[in-house]
């Protein structure tokens, strides 16, 4: 995972590059929450281009970050998920609330 905060746009960019399952999402959850709370951005972008696997634990992970972001008035954006991840997002109800680009 890599991150970048763009001060001028008050935007947090998080680039995920690991497989997201129940094992990895525990760490990801605390790290991503840490950055969201630290910067309190207007927008948080989760770049998933380099994520080649995600299961339902990842849905829970994204839903949890969405809830935190929403509480803080921050928009969560999921960027470039692959076809399989997109399919999972569409199966769950979170795709109705979260912007996927």
């Amino acid at each position, binding site marked *: 995972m890599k991150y970048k905060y763009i001060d001028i746009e008050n935007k947090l960019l998080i680039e995920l590059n690991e*497989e997201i*399952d*129940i*094992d*990895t999402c*525990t760490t990801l*959850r605390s790290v991503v929450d840490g950055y969201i709370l630290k910067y309190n951005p207007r927008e948080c972008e989760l770049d998933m281009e380099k994520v080649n*696997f*995600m*299961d*339902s*634990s990842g*849905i*829970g*992970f994204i*839903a*949890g970050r969405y809830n935190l972001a929403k509480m803080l008035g921050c928009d969560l954006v999921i960027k470039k998920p692959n*076809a*399989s991840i997109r399919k*999972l997002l569409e*199966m*769950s*109800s979170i795709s109705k609330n979260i912007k996927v680009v």
Partner: protein
Amino acid sequence: MNNKIELIVNGILENVSVVRVCIAAFLAKQNITIDELSDIKTAVSEAVTNSIEHGYVETKGNVNVIAKIANVDNMVFLVVEVKDNGIGIQDVGLATTPAYTSKPELEHAGMGFTIMETFMDEVVIDSTIGQGTKITMTKRLRTVKE
């Protein structure tokens, strides 16, 4: 050609990815698409996650995974069996309800069984309270050309 692997892994979370990688390697010589492989890996990941996360709550144990390629009536099937000796499922109907999770505080999506049922052709749940759960998932891979 028929083929089979059997994996016995400790029921710890880091082994979810170990099983996934082994299944992918097992399927490497099968003529399947990346999408199919991805679906299978996701379904297996869900089943193994369930065994570890919900089966072994207070006790520890192994997860036994058997994957078979079987040729039946000119069709090639993949059968994956995921078995634990955990607590078993109290209410299978409830457990398989989309978006139901017994652990909402842990941010689980409650989609494990929905994903298994969507991504595989058949999912059979055989669970006995106090003895464990066996999930048998079948997917038709292709028709053998004459």
